[in-house]
């Protein structure tokens, strides 16, 4: 049994790796409604994060994933999708 749950910490790591944006995980967790655009993650950055997650888990995420506006929305959607696998 592997854990598939995406945490704020992991999202912060992905944001750094796939979009080049440094953000403190606790800041992400404290204000999860701060839009990606406000954090410096553009549409391509989010596509990169989605692609990385898809490769890691070997599943396709719903297209809505790349349209999420905030980390809160994104984490909820991704975890929901991964739980369904």
């Amino acid at each position, binding site marked *: 049994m592997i854990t598939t749950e995406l945490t704020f910490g992991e999202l912060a790591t992905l944001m750094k790796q796939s979009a080049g944006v440094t953000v403190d995980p606790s800041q992400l967790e404290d204000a999860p409604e701060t839009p990606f655009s406000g954090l410096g993650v*553009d*549409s*391509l950055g989010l*596509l*990169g994060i989605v*692609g990385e997650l898809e490769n890691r888990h070997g599943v396709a995420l719903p*297209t809505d994933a*790349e349209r999420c506006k905030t980390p809160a929305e994104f984490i909820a959607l991704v975890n929901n999708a991964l739980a369904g696998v």
Partner: protein
Amino acid sequence: MTRRVAVTGIGVVAPGGAGTAAFWDLLAQGRTATRGITLFDPAGLRSRIAAECDFDPYDHGLPVDLIEHTDRYVQFAAVAAGEAVRDSGLDTATEDPWRVGVSLGSAVGGTTRLEHDYVLVSERGQRWDVDHRAADPKLHLAFSPSTLAAVVAERFGARGPVQTVSTGCTSGLDAVGYAFHTIEEGRADVVIAGASDSPISPITMACFDAIKATSPDNDDPEHASKPFDNRRNGFVMGEGAAVLVLEEYEHARARDAHIYCEIGGYATYGNAYHMTGLTGEGLEMARAIDTALDQARLDPTSIDYVNAHGSGTRQNDRHETAAVKRSLGSHAYDTPMSSIKSMVGHSLGAIGAIEVAACVLALKHQVVPPTANYEIPDPECDLDYVPRTARPRKLRNVLSVGSGFGGFQSAVLLTGPGGRTR
């Protein structure tokens, strides 16, 4: 005192058949040249379709050295330039070579060749410290973007200003625009101008997969490119080249050349917004159109046809519709606007020149090419997109617009016989 710029020759290598005649047949009949990729095995890709050219360089009398050491896009350009120069009747042997220039565009240059040799030197992506011994000793010809213009200049004896333009997907429009300026400003009398790209390669297909910009309609490639249609879901990759002979008007008249039309205006702006994103407003493209109209001293109502960028992505077609409405006002609703990308795909940097060639031919034949596959309207794209069937129409002034990654927004205005002259 302003020098006018005439189009006196056309050459095209496009999907659906090489040569200008085959190209115009395809457009006039509204046929599509999109199909499953055959140039490499596309298994694993999200988009596995493209508009390919059935092109064998050995059929066109190109030197073996050129065939063996240059990329496909250079060969397309050499062939298209040959047709254009023949069509213009220009005798390159008697022209002053220092007054003949070249301006050719390409978005991705020699990437297909570069990828081919990369696979060899890296042992299929296994090593960063690549082994140079496996590479073609003339690989620099794929690496240097100026190979494109240099090869064409060499073949036709051009010794004047020779340049390669690379502004992403507006490269073709901009190469024609730079050539227009070069002649207008008196730096050359003749410029061989156009663009070429051969981007149907794993790396270029994969990078557009990654941003979901290309259509995944792999089961129905003929109908995959659907600009302005509400079912559109991305562009279909294309390849090819178009080259025009541009000539100072009096120079063309003096040798009794056939003049197709004139370049009336050209402008380009940046949207300063996002490398791939577009605003819904089309402000910068509208400004490019306005500036081109200004240069030609034309009123927006004098535009008879708009050849759209019409890539078939959700955002592009709305952006462009907004831009054209902003510039042409209510006249936009009376102006046919079509996208030939529905038929020949989107050949990145080349397509702008291919579209200008289509405009020249539209003026010649007095026929508006259609938007193939257009059936279901998008409420936000509410102009006349010339669905599926070409349409005869009195054409004097036509506009070709383009938009590209990096924010480039360009417009070229052509004026045919009966259009205005400055």
